[in-house]
């Protein structure tokens, strides 16, 4: 299984003004995103921000209220979930307890009426990729959380999906396993280069893996960009706050020169950089101090 197995067409995902109400809550509110072919794209936000709903809209489990979903330019709104050729890894893995690991992974190939020999080859290949080939005859109940996660990943990958959808795939694992599997996902994505949409509330996961990230709040996308861009130039306090530990100090601008600004704060005078809208002397601003940017001198 490698990148060449995938259909060669350009499988970008385009969402235009997508909205979805669940009950009376606007779970997804006018979201527009363009995800490039082969990109590892993250939806990041606190719980209840609508990221999982957005992923389920892309998978087709909910009908959209308005807006369009396109895969490789083809409209998907009216395509039922079983015809979208996405591979989804569920937060709880959703492995079928009445089937073995092998049967779980083979399921999608059975649906696609792949020949027996070919099926066996591809299942074992997929299990190899996630390093679970030795456990292929086990029942999911006998596997640890990390192993279940790998099987779920293999099950989604084996059908060569146009888009891989990961719904908080690591959130049920302990900290050590999380780091391990994070590397695993990075490796597999590099090998296969399948367009991947990854939902998480863990900003470290997003910052360390993502090609690009969309930060969400209350059903809206607050900011989209590369990890460096988001981290260095957060569009607002929410993004800033959500992306990492930071100290905020309020003060008044005393001097502006180029992209540097002097601010008088209760803790003393500070020299800050800024971009975006122009600042003027006397304005009240909030300065952000990142812990890793602080150097302590003796």
């Amino acid at each position, binding site marked *: 299984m490698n990148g060449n197995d995938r259909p060669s067409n350009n499988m970008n995902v385009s969402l235009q003004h997508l909205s979805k109400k669940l009950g009376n809550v606007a779970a997804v509110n006018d979201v527009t995103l363009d995800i490039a072919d082969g990109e590892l794209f993250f939806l990041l936000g606190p719980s209840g921000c609508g990221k999982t709903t957005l992923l*389920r809209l892309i998978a087709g*489990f909910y009908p959209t209220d308005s807006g369009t979903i396109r895969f490789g330019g083809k409209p998907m709104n009216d395509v039922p979930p079983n015809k979208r050729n996405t591979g989804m890894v569920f*937060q709880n893995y*959703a492995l079928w307890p009445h089937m073995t690991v092998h049967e779980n992974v083979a399921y999608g190939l059975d649906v696609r009426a792949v020949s027996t020999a070919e099926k066996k080859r591809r299942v074992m290949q997929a299990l190899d990729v996630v390093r679970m080939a030795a456990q292929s005859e086990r029942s999911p*109940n006998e596997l640890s959380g990390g192993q279940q996660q790998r099987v779920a990943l293999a099950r989604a990958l084996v059908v060569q999906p146009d888009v891989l959808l990961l719904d908080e795939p690591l959130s049920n694992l302990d900290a050590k396993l999380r780091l391990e599997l994070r590397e695993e996902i990075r490796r597999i994505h590099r090998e296969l280069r399948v367009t991947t949409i990854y939902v998480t509330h863990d900003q470290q996961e997003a910052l360390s893996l993502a090609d690009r990230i969309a930060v969400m709040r209350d059903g809206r996308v607050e900011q989209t960009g590369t990890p460096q861009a988001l981290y260095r130039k957060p569009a607002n306090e929410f993004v800033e706050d959500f992306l990492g530990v930071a100290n905020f100090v309020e003060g008044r601008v005393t001097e502006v020169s180029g992209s540097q600004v002097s601010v008088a704060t209760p803790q003393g005078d500070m020299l800050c950089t800024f971009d975006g809208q122009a600042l003027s002397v006397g304005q009240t601003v909030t300065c952000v101090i990142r812990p890793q940017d602080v150097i302590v001198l003796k």
Partner: protein
Amino acid sequence: MNRRLTASTVALLALLVAFFGVFLVYPVAYILRGAFFVGGKFTMEFFRLVVASPLTLKSILNSFWLGIFVTALTALLTLPLAHVFTRYDFRGKSLLGALLLVPLIMPPFVGAIGMRQFFARYGSVNLLFGTHIDWLGDGGFWGVVVLQTLSLYPIMFLNVTAAMANVDPTLREAAQNLGASPWRVFRTVTLPLVLPGLFAGAILVFVWAFTDLGTPLIFGFNRLVAVQIFDRVTDIGTNPMGYVLVCVVLLLTVALFIVSKWLLAGTRYEMLARGHTAGAEQHVRGWRATTIQVGVLAVIGVALLPHASVMLQSVSDKWFFTVLPSQVTWRHFGEIFTYPLTASSVRNSLVYSGLSAGVDLVLGVMIAYVLVRQKVPGAAVLDALAMLPLALPGLVLAFGYLGGFNVPLRWLNPRDNPTLLLVAAYSVRRLPYIVRSAYAGFQQTSVTLEEASLNLGASALRTLRKITIPLVMANLIAGTVLTFSFAMLEVSDSLILAMKERYFPMTKAIWALLGRIEPDSVSVASAMGILGMLLLAVSLVIASKSLGKRMGQLFRAG
């Protein structure tokens, strides 16, 4: 939770062992002895006779097929209903769900009285269309199948719905995501996971249909093992064939339970961590909702046909060779309380059912308490004994009582006074419901509340009385009410054990009335059936008010 056995626990266990020993183990052992031993010597001779007699062999086979057909039909009827009720949310869902359970409030044989009037050779349907079709089919066999299906499907529905609701929706979504069509998702994911629940319901339905006595009696279809046993009640002392047939029923039901346990071993999947459940119930509107509502209403309409027919029969004054009764009257409801037979039977039923509900309440609380809180050795045996009556047909127990308690004690021998044994039979048969209900109550109540009471110096008994029982009251009320109302409508125990008219309970009185030649007696019997239904309906409303949504748990096998 101490593992030490206190004196009071020992006394409690001794009482339970004595009760089960006398009223459950002894009669069953008596039947086995009657079937296998003659003059103290073991013999299989009688079983050879069963196979050699074409009538008994045919009866056993008929009963078997009856059970199979009823089980298959209830499953076929229930699977789509359960699917709709677990997957979709639509207008009127809770009302329709409640109406679907209405058949639980009437024993099938009462419905048979009314249906006979509709579908007999000179019944309403044939008169209406000028036909002479034998609607009841093959001497009544298919009539029994339909009647039992219509009255037993709620049990299957409750079991299957519970199993389906337990299937994590993401398991279906994962299959859908991998390209499976809705039918394929059902076949490869939902059905295998629901199978244990389906099986549990199927066993209850099969045993119920296999041993039901009332319905075939009303339809006059006597080539069934239950009816054959009933016919042998009169020569119970002289002819061992009755014991042998009861033994066949007993062995078959026990074998069935064992086989199902074995088949299901390893298929009770612990569901892994549950996923996102927001998409569990899909709200439907428009034509899809209408299709669902019309479909469910059609089932309810057919299922309530027996009830409607009994109602019609109960208010009919003259109903001979006409489609509908030519005159209508409420008189028969009054006559229930003026006829000596019916008036005393209502009183008897209230006494028997009241006493048995009381016995069950005390025993059920004790058993559940011991099982949940005391952790005594042999708890598994106690649990099995308390649940055994689920697998034990009333027919078997009643026959064992009749044979085993044929002693010269006027207060014990059912031939003289069946009160004690009827109360015991009702109690034993309905004990599983109240044990389960109380068990759930104890489990939901934190043990620390009891420990606080013990810590303040209260005795174990005082703690039970002052703290525990008040906390599990809702469960106890529900369990007791159900025990009471099902005792009111118990058929096979009542038909077999009550032999003197002045001790007849309602169900036996209904049966006796049908055998009379007075023109009104069928209508009075129907009026009694309606009275019983109303009583049971009120009881169920009380029970569900105190238990809320957990009501369905009481009818589940798993």
